[in-house]
């Protein structure tokens, strides 16, 4: 693997329902640090499955994923891998409703045992940079959808991961809020030299990325 390549996906396949449903057929591609990639295709084409396998939320039936030279098949402590190397942004923000925005953003740092003072400072700084400083102590139900999604971006970035995986991050937002979220993700990916993969239906978002990978029925087109 070349030094610049952060992610290498080789012949990746995933089946469900005891092999009756093939969600992903031998998908391969590689990507470098600081790149932005759009995963496009219709609903059910395997975009979310691919992101789950890259982010180690799930394990493949065939093929392999390497992140920064690490073969994920050999990673036993998946939680630690996700906390250190992956930042997820989901379509429906997925904030914990009983945690304030600040506590939600601190959650990935808690997984790494970051001391309280450091957690507080880092989360506050990120929320400030997203224009959410005044909302830090609010519960997710007490802020707008756009603010929730920006907080979710802050949570994804908080441990400075090498991989940013966003699954329809603007799917539930109006166009203005959606643009803000994409700007934040792309901006941080470039400034932190992270690899951003965005699964999207939206052609405008896909056009804003460096590359596009299109899937259809679980296959790369």
């Amino acid at each position, binding site marked *: 693997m070349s030094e610049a390549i952060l992610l290498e996906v080789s012949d990746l396949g995933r089946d469900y329902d005891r092999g009756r449903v093939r969600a992903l057929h031998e998908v391969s591609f590689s990507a470098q640090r600081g790149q932005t990639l759009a995963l496009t295709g219709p609903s059910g084409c395997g975009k979310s499955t691919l992101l789950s396998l890259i982010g180690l939320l799930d394990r493949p039936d065939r093929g392999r994923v390497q992140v920064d030279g690490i073969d994920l098949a050999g990673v036993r402590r998946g939680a630690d891998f996700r906390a250190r190397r992956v930042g997820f942004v989901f379509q429906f923000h997925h904030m914990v409703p*009983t945690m304030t925005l600040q506590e939600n953003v601190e959650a990935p740092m808690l997984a790494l045992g970051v001391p309280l003072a450091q957690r507080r400072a880092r989360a506050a700084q990120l929320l400030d940079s997203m224009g959410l400083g005044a909302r830090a102590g609010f519960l997710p139900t007490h802020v707008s959808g756009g603010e929730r999604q920006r907080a979710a971006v802050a949570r994804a970035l908080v441990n400075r991961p090498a991989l940013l995986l966003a699954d329809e991050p603007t799917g539930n937002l109006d166009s203005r809020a959606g643009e803000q979220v994409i700007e934040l993700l792309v901006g941080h990916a470039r400034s932190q030299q992270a690899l951003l993969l965005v699964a999207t239906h939206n052609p405008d978002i896909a056009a804003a990325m460096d590359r596009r990978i299109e899937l259809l029925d679980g296959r790369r087109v």
Partner: protein
Amino acid sequence: MIFLRNLLRAPLRSLMTVLGIAAGVALFAAVSAITADLRQQIGAAIDAYHYDVVVHERRAPSPFSSRITLAQMQTLVEEHGEALAPMVIGTLNESWSSYALVMGVEPGFANRMALVAGRPMVVERDEAMLGELGAQRLGLQPGALLRLGDKDHLVSGIFRTGSRMFDGGVMIGSRQAQGLFTPAGSEGHFTLALLRTGDRAETARMITEVQRRHPELRAIPATEFAGALRLFRVVDAFVGTIAVVALVGTVLVVTNTLLMAVAERTREIGILMAVGWTPWLVLRMLLAESVLLCLAGAALGNVAGLALLHTVNGMETVGFGWIPVSLSPSMVATSFALTLVIALLALAWPAVVLWRMQPLAALRHE
């Protein structure tokens, strides 16, 4: 704060769980307090008179149901003289108390009682000395009449032993007591005898001596008297059973609450796992909730236990002074420690569920 917010998300369920824990703690604390206190009361009363040995019938299942014949007691008195205090003990169902403790004693014992009012009774007459607690509850002073059996007894004095159980009772002459507790036509008997020895070596020697000379009797150190009472053996077994039932029941209540929390928050747990939380970290959050519920239950349970003791103590059928109206600090500490054990045990099943949980499946959970 997160733990509190999580618990307040289902306030009624949290409240019911706390009440369930409190009920278990209250029951355990109240019953344990009663048995511990009864032991302490009996021990304190015997200790107060500096008697070292208790002699009772060997075949009696419990010292209080012992029957020592008049002839046996006569021999014991001849052998030990002033050091021996024969005693008749029993309970009566009277109009003024349905569980009146009556102690029949000899003049020497009666004259040594510490009185707070009046004078020692004359044992040959129908006179009685009333315990301070009983006198307060009945509102009686020296000079008043107290009905025992079919006779009125003149209250000559009010005594205080320091043991609530005995201070809730009444003392009369041993002959009068034998009359009360012996069916017409039967020979009277004593219940037990207290023996003063002096030191520990003499106590051991005396016990051996009494049992050698009187194979039909058993002599035990006064310190072991409470433990020899069948009542306490039964109560100990009862308390043990209640403790186990309360423990298991409470663990199940808390386990159910935590399992419901895990089921309802599966997607949130999936989110936390997606951002790097291990099952341990999620379990730590649940542990905090479990501990919070259990500590609240323990606090409420101790208050409820105290209320229970006051209520039972006020029941006329129980008898004066038999029920304590306070919980010892060690009892309170034990109940809190026990609930912390419950908080841990209740996590076992939710922990298995968490360890089996797959992050992706949890995230997609509806």
